């Protein structure tokens, strides 16, 4: 059309393959995961820990299991954060869902299958309510879900104490023994001397589905648009409220999945189980390249984020550092990750 316009485009340097790779939101987290793994590997070798501890198959199975649990929450929270919302209630949702499934089995003698279905329905309900409250009141989701965090935790303790006189529900394993649905949450496989739990499969499946939905479906495009600007999205016809409510339901459901796996694996439910998981999920999302303000991010990145979290948490123990230092390390990783991701995003979006 005109030379001026073309000249403007010509000023963009041609994108090389590495540059394209570096402009992906999960790139920083991928490098971070490599670095964290290498650091613990080197520390282990220095301790002479080859074939045991961190550098063993069982060690890998352990830190992957920790990563998988938080990763399931992290991937759902990433999608929600890309859409520009927070869910602080996932942590106490885990507790509430654990109690729900535990009580339904132990106290009400329901088959495990029914208990699981009811627990998921309960989670969908809470998630939908969070979302509905958010879009109807237009209060920030930070506030809405902070309120829900308190309500769920308080109600969980109150109701459980009323019913059992205790805040822990035990005896789930005995009460659900032989139920065909239980192995779905407890199965494990022994590979080369390491016991890999089925939670890993759930995590991989969740990340794969989320990545597919985010990058290859209309709904995924809407998630990005809603997070970029919900007004702009609404003006081009995106059903903004529906997108948000569905994503709040997804985070609540991820908490229910977390709870089911944990309750059947440990044989008991505890209201405090999910404490702080809401923050770990946000850390995973942000480390994974999701922008805190929404509109940009990656589901795959959350997997690297979760890997970093799980590896650090167990790696610190394996290499003999007092676990008191875990939070210091985690905080530092968070800061570094945000700085790196902000830099990468600026490069990708051409602003400096």
């Amino acid at each position: 059309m005109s030379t001026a316009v073309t000249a403007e485009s010509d000023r963009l340097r041609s994108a090389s393959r590495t540059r394209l790779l570096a402009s992906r939101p999960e790139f920083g987290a991928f490098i971070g995961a490599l670095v964290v793994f290498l650091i613990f590997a080197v520390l282990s070798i220095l301790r002479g820990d080859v074939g045991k501890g961190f550098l063993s198959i069982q060690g890998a199975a352990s830190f992957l299991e920790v990563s998988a649990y938080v990763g399931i929450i992290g991937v759902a929270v990433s999608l929600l954060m890309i859409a520009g919302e927070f869910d602080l209630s996932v942590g106490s949702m885990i507790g509430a869902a654990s109690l729900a499934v535990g009580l339904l089995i132990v106290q009400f003698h329901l088959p495990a299958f029914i208990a699981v279905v009811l627990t998921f329905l309960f989670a969908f309900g809470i998630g939908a309510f969070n979302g509905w409250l958010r879009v109807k009141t237009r209060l920030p989701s930070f506030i809405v879900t902070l309120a829900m965090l308190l309500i769920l935790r308080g109600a969980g303790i109150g109701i459980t104490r009323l019913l059992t006189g205790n805040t822990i529900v035990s005896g789930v394993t005995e009460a659900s023994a032989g139920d065909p649905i239980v192995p779905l949450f407890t199965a494990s496989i022994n590979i080369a001397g390491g016991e890999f739990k089925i939670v890993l499969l759930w995590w991989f499946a969740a990340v794969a589905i989320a990545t597919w939905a985010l990058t290859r479906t209309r709904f995924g495009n809407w998630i990005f648009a809603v997070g970029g600007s919900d007004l702009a999205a609404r003006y081009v016809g995106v059903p903004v409220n529906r997108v948000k409510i569905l994503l709040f339901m997804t985070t609540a459901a991820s908490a229910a999945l977390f709870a089911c796996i944990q309750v059947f694996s440990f044989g008991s439910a505890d209201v405090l189980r999910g404490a702080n998981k809401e923050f770990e999920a946000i850390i995973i999302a942000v480390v994974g390249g999701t922008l805190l303000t929404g509109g940009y991010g990656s589901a795959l990145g959350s997997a690297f984020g979760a890997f970093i979290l799980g590896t650090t948490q167990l790696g610190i123990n394996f290499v003999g550092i007092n676990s008191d230092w875990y939070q210091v390390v985690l905080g530092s990783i968070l800061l570094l990750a945000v700085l790196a991701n902000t830099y990468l995003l600026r490069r990708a979006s051409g602003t400096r």
Partner: protein
Amino acid sequence: MQPIDERPSVPHDNAPFTMPAETAQRIAEYGGKGAGPVNDKVPVLEARDISKYFGRVIALEHVSLSVRPGEVNCLLGDNGAGKSTLIKTLSGVHPPDTGSLYMDGQQVTLQSPRDALDRGIATVYQDLAVLPLMSISRNFFVGSEPTRGWGPFARFDVTEAGRIATEQMLEIGIQVRDPSQLVGTLSGGERQTLAIARAEYFGARVLILDEPTSALGVKEAAIVLRHVIWVRAKGLAVIFITHNVQHALPIADRFTILSHGRLAGEFVRGEVDQDELLRLMGGGEELTELARELDELMGADTRTIEQAAVAAEATPTSPDGSLAEVEAEELPPDSPD
């Protein structure tokens, strides 16, 4: 072509905007489907006697406006004149309290922005035109994604979206090497142009452009103005909202001026000059006043008041720091209402 980019898009002496030869040629090749300036076709979109109140505030009162195929109607007004309220009414964001809308002579009620879009009314908002952190192809199709497959397995056809987006961007003169590149890498003018091209691609018949040039530099504004001329030549009806008379004059077939929520004047091209438009917008007196102050400050009484006013409007900074200060105080900020 005219070396339009080497000088300010609108010269100070009020010379008419000259269409770049290349654009003119393209328009000629297109076969003159555009109706040309000021025709007597049935308006594609017409607002009759619209009023809108927010509580006790009169946002709009008895405002009418119409736009025909192949015509650019420039809606002018200072900040707070009611331009935004009027376009929100025209684009289905909120219904008018009184008065009605007509498309092709038939009365219509717009239920929502989506409804307006489905009827062919596309609005491009200055700040909300595109999502900078999304790729070019995702931006192009957001809200109207092409899908493949069935039911829950229907997937967003990324390859197809990328292909169409690249093709359409080339059509408007922007070479895209990689459609997955973020829109943030495009310049301001290119972003607005992308949004216009997108609306066109999805079958818009009426384009409402909300201050598409006001945040842009001269070069960038020229990219957008040129594209508006091209879209008009293709027979679309354009409502171009601005408070910058300099950008309105070269492209408008009609002028509709709003002031304090009411119609302050309606003209066709050639009936009105810049000073009259400025006066009607309510900015004329202030500019005259500004020019007088400037003259006093700088001791320059050689310039005429009009020239000073034009210079003040067109020159964002000056060698003299005090001028920029006065300007900032006297002129409304260059932003939408």
